[in-house]
């Protein structure tokens, strides 16, 4: 090799990213900066959107080898943790370690509010099919209405990996917008009298019940919808660490440094999948629109079902807690509290809204499980993968190539 000054200079010039920077890359760098801005100055789920935006920035520097499709690159390595569904369940374990099911156990019928809020998922599914997405894609888009980040990522990586980036961005952005999106809908769909309903104090719950509950949920839900076991099972394991009282060390690690480490890797990986190719499409706009629809309908579904429960209970349930059924813990519950307190400052809905709030987490996990039962079987996912390989790249060629080769030789 020759290294004269001029040949080297020319080599350096040609290796700068400027020479291959296309308008799409530049636009995506702008999108990345926007996400970082929203995270820091607008406090939009900063723990996720800051590293996600930064990952997007790195991925869109041409030749940086930081896109999720750059085999051998750093962020592709983290991306494997999403692709193989390792990172979202670990996050969910941490969320479980942070979750108190007490309010839900004290008032179990609020689980129905968590179910009702899933109506947003299905309205969006129908809307997505109407806009031309296929059923798997539509399911992955619909789950945005569940307002649950890890669940959205988990399902998207299984059913529609090529849409992972816009789905994740939409999910986390709208989760941050819960305090803006929900209140007008809540006020629109309730009467002043209903908003002033005061709820009875929650019964205290035996610690034993709190310990048995996660095991019971795991057995009941996972047997019915086995596809959701990685997510729901790990969620409940984290909660066991919390409630059992004998695993304080593991509890502390799961809810602090382990979830933090995994959050960094997950968010970077999601950001790295936000390339111009995968993000700057008409589909992204559709998904962003559908996501807003999803949140609005989820809120409406919860509130309307809250009104029904209000009626049936003879006015002992404040329908404002219904909107908390969307997940987005604890933001949605705080919104219920705030809207309630605006009407009557002596009205304390926060703890009552925590019930539907954590029910919403279970609800969207169950919704994901239903989709996995319907669309997640092996053959479909294989087909999906093969179909998408040209788009999303094929980061796991080893195994499959071996299989192919072995087949070829056998013949």
């Amino acid at each position, binding site marked *: 090799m020759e290294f004269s000054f001029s040949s080297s200079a020319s080599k350096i010039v040609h290796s700068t990213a400027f020479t291959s920077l296309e308008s799409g890359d530049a636009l995506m760098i702008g999108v990345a900066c926007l996400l970082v801005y929203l995270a820091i100055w607008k406090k939009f789920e900063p723990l996720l959107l800051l590293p996600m935006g930064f990952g997007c920035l790195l991925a869109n520097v041409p030749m940086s080898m930081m896109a999720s499709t750059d085999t051998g690159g750093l962020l592709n390595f983290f991306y494997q943790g999403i692709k193989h569904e390792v990172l979202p369940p670990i996050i969910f374990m941490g969320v479980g370690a942070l979750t108190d099911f007490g309010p839900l156990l004290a008032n179990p019928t609020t689980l129905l509010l968590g179910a009702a809020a899933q109506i947003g998922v299905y309205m969006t599914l129908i809307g997505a099919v109407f806009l031309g997405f296929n059923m798997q894609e539509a399911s992955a888009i619909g789950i945005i209405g569940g307002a649950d980040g890890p669940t959205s990522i988990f399902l998207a990586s299984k059913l529609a990996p090529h849409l992972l980036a816009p789905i994740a961005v939409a999910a986390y952005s709208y989760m941050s917008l819960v305090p803006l999106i929900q209140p007008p809908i809540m006020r629109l769909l309730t009467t002043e009298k209903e908003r002033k309903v005061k709820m009875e104090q929650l019964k205290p719950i*035996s*610690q034993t*019940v709190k310990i*048995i509950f996660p095991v*019971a*949920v795991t057995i009941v839900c996972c047997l019915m919808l086995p596809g959701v076991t990685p997510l729901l099972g790990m969620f409940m394991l984290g909660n066991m660490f919390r409630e059992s*009282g004998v695993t304080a060390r593991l509890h502390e690690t799961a809810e602090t440094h382990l979830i933090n480490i995994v959050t960094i890797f997950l968010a970077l990986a999601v950001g790295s999948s936000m390339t111009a190719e995968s993000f700057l499409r008409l589909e992204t706009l559709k998904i962003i629109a559908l996501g807003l629809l999803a949140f609005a309908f989820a809120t409406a579904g919860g509130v309307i079902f809250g009104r029904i429960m209000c009626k049936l209970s003879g006015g002992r349930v404040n329908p404002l807690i219904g909107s908390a059924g969307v997940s987005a813990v604890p933001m949605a519950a705080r919104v219920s509290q705030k809207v309630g307190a605006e009407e009557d400052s002596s009205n304390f809905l926060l703890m009552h809204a925590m019930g539907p709030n954590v029910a919403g987490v279970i609800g969207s996990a169950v919704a994901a499980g239903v989709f996995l039962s319907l669309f997640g079987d092996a053959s479909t996912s294989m087909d999906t993968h093969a179909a998408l390989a040209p788009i999303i790249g094929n980061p796991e060629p080893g195994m499959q190539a071996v299989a192919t080769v072995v087949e070829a030789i056998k013949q």
Partner: protein
Amino acid sequence: MEASVSAAVSVSALAMSVIFMVLIILIFTIKLLVKLIPYEAPPAPPARKVSAASSQPEQDDQVAAITASLAAHMGKRPDEFRIVNIQSR
């Protein structure tokens, strides 16, 4: 398109049914649990029980350990003096 939208409606109806079914089963499970294992007035969560139960032997061990090392440093036999209590930080 129309066909697939109607399929989407079917799927949605079915899925909502399943969700409600699963969550209703959960509700009854919870109600059963709460009925079988009622909350008892003096809140004695296992967590505290543990520390209460195990702190005594642990403190005994600590007393023994500290006695032994004190003995080593003071050049006395452990039975020549006695540590009565240890105030933890």
